[in-house]
């Protein structure tokens, strides 16, 4: 899969590294040269200097034959515009935008953009952790991941227990195992896809 990533901050650099380890071809865009220092020396992909909402820069990064596009700059509006350009102008099949503002994230998700909202994810998970640490019940269980547009997937909530081990570090134990996610789509084969949990299981 050919992936174009906009934004080589901490998330963008890490995302590039992970996807390359999964065997995909990466092209990453950033407006500052120093940002590419975050990439590991083993990075084999392409780096492009420029603004990701400029069609010429996107073309230089190979957007015309990209399979996926992820916009993970720190700026919501840039991510929103870049994903729309990738999807509507260049016809990239799968696009993902990081949007910090929950209100905007909700609107654009409804408009058909695949989105990820760190604000919602972190606040919900942090709340789960804190409540578990204090052994308090949650007033409302909340999904910790977004529903994807096409397949109506939601991650079920697992209650989290935290225990302190001897070394003083806290390990998080998941009391119910995180269910593997299955694509509910009649057209495709029945292979399931796993969504990596936000925290590791205590082995």
């Amino acid at each position, binding site marked *: 899969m050919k992936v174009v990533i906009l934004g080589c901050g901490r998330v963008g650099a890490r995302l590039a590294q992970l996807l390359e380890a999964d065997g995909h071809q990466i092209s990453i865009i950033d407006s500052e040269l120093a940002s590419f220092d975050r990439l590991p020396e083993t990075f084999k992909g392409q780096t492009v200097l420029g603004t990701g909402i400029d069609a010429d820069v996107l073309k230089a990064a190979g957007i015309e034959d990209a399979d996926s596009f992820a916009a993970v700059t720190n700026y919501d509006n840039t991510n929103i*515009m870049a994903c729309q350009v990738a999807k509507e102008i260049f016809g990239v099949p799968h696009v993902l935008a990081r949007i910090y503002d929950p209100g905007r994230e909700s609107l654009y998700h409804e408009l058909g953009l695949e989105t990820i909202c760190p604000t919602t994810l972190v606040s919900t998970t942090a709340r789960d952790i804190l409540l578990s640490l204090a052994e308090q019940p949650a007033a409302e269980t909340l999904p910790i991941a977004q529903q994807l547009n096409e397949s109506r997937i939601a991650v079920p909530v697992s209650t989290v227990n935290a225990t302190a081990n001897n070394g003083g570090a806290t390990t998080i134990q998941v009391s119910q195992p995180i269910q593997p996610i299955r694509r509910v789509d009649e057209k495709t084969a029945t292979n399931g896809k796993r969504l990596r949990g936000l925290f590791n299981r205590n082995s």
Partner: protein
Amino acid sequence: MYILVVGGGKVGYYLTKTLVNEGYEILLIEKNPKKVAIYGERFGSVVVEGDGAELTTLEAAGAARADVVVAVTGDDEDNLVVCQTAKRLFKVPRTIARVNNPKNEEIFKKLGIDVTVSSTNIILSIIEQEIPERGLVHLMTLKHAQVALVEATVEMGAPVAGKSLAEFNFPPNVVISAVMRDGSLILPRGDTVLMPEDEVIALASKESEEAFRQMMTGS
């Protein structure tokens, strides 16, 4: 008519000032508190502090009852989000976006923005009108971006020179709308003969532009 202006830079400032003087109901949304304070002193309570791309700001500004939202910040991506949010969420009938990068004008239209204004493009076409060698001048791109209003001057020896509109084979999707000759306007008919130095204004589709230019200039 209630108008919301987002972005208190030079454009937003003068736009607000003009609209206030013309008696419209207007609200300017600007992020920078210092600017808000200064403008407040000059215009009164038509300026409010906030990020016009945030839903809560637009809601508090009464976007739901706005007739027009104009996004004139210096960043195209901000203007895009303001207009899309105003239109899709608040159902504002008319949204206008300033486009700084001329290449984004066509992109914005494809992404559903009603009206885009690119001062760079406007100035470009004015410059081009002064340069005779250029051949074809873009006066205006129509909303659907596939058709433009163009102008070309008939050159000596061009294929179309000396021929009437009826007898000349024009490319498909070209409509001759007006002919300017010696300062007078001629509304063209089949028997109108095009002469060198006539300025011809036509509606032309993107694909036919080059063919139209060639028949006007002979090159």
